[in-house]
Each structure stands twice: as structure tokens, then as C-alpha cells.
């Protein structure tokens, strides 16, 4: 894969990360913040995947897998926290 394409894509994904930060700052509520963090984690997964394509190493995608696992757990626990007032 040509490096120029992946470099442009990394720059674009970084701009998307700024957009996600704006979304997180504009969130009026706890659920909006949970949603914004979910979207931010998805953008970071995209960034790590593109970084792995750029460098030719595979362990950035492994980090993305761990991040996706943590994001699922944190989203489920935070949603439960919003409903019941506690994580359990």
C-alpha cells in the first residue's frame, strides 16, 4: 500500500478526532458523554489500524483489539450506571 495514501488518511482521522473532542465538550448529559466516548474509541481504532498499515507492524491492531474490548465493557457498565445509579 502506498504510504502517501495512508499518511493522508492518518491526517484525516486526526481531524475526525478533533471533531469527536468537540462532540465530547458539547455533551449536555452523561449519556451523551458515553456516546461521545464510544465514537472517540472508534476513531482511535481507525487511527491505530492506519498506523499499523503505515509502519507495517501488527501489534498496533492488537492494541486496537484491547481498546475495543475495554470500550465495550465501559459502555455497558456506564449505561447500567445511568439507569440504576450504580454499576451493579
Amino acid at each position, binding site marked *: 500500500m502506498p504510504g502517501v*495514501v495512508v499518511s493522508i488518511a492518518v491526517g484525516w482521522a486526526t481531524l475526525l478526532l478533533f*471533531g469527536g473532542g468537540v462532540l465530547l465538550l458539547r455533551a449536555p448529559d452523561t449519556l451523551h458523554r458515553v456516546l461521545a466516548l464510544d465514537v472517540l474509541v*472508534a476513531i482511535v481504532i481507525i487511527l491505530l*489500524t492506519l498506523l499499523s498499515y503505515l509502519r507495517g507492524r*501488527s501489534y498496533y491492531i*492488537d492494541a486496537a483489539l484491547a481498546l*475495543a474490548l475495554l470500550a*465495550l465493557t465501559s459502555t*455497558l457498565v456506564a449505561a447500567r450506571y445511568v439507569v440504576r445509579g450504580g454499576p451493579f
Partner: protein
Amino acid sequence: MVLDVIAAGLIALGLLLATIGLYGLLRFPDIFHQLHPAGLVTGPAVLLVLLAAVATGSAEIITSAALVLLFVLVTSPLSTHAIAQAARRRPRRPEDGTASGGSEATRP
């Protein structure tokens, strides 16, 4: 060469979907409206960028990307559904009104 063009197209399409989803997230007023573009960002955008791993030609990267692809395919609807269910069932404060949730009559 053909694989490179396909991968560049997949990456561009995935980032375009993420941009559209983020624009929708910034424009829509309600959490139930916002869940739709959020599902667009966390689901298909990530999947399209991960599908572009076929052009790298490295077995390690393709295997890891396939693993993450299967995982995201399962967990993205799960998290979106959890947020939607929490938004529907959360206890409503009196000053909230109906500005950030569904109608009161449909709640169980």
C-alpha cells in the same frame, strides 16, 4: 496494484462514512437521533478501514485485522443497544422535561 487501489478506496469510503457520522452527531439534537450516526461511525466505518488490510500483504496484519473485524461486528450493535436502552429506561429528572428522551407514555 489493483489491490492498492481497492484498499485506498476502502479507506477513503470508511473515513467518508466516519465524517458523515460525526457531522450527524454534531447536528442532531436528541440522543435517539444521535445513535444512528454513532452506529455509522462505530460499525461500518471501522469495518471498511479494517477490510483494507488485505492490501498490506502481511499475514500478521491480516489475521489481527480479521480478529478485530469479527469483534467489532459483534460489539458495535451491543454498545449502541445498551446506550439506547439506558436512554429509554433512565430515571427522569423533573427539569429535564421531554427534551432529551422519548415520550413518557411509551415507557414500561
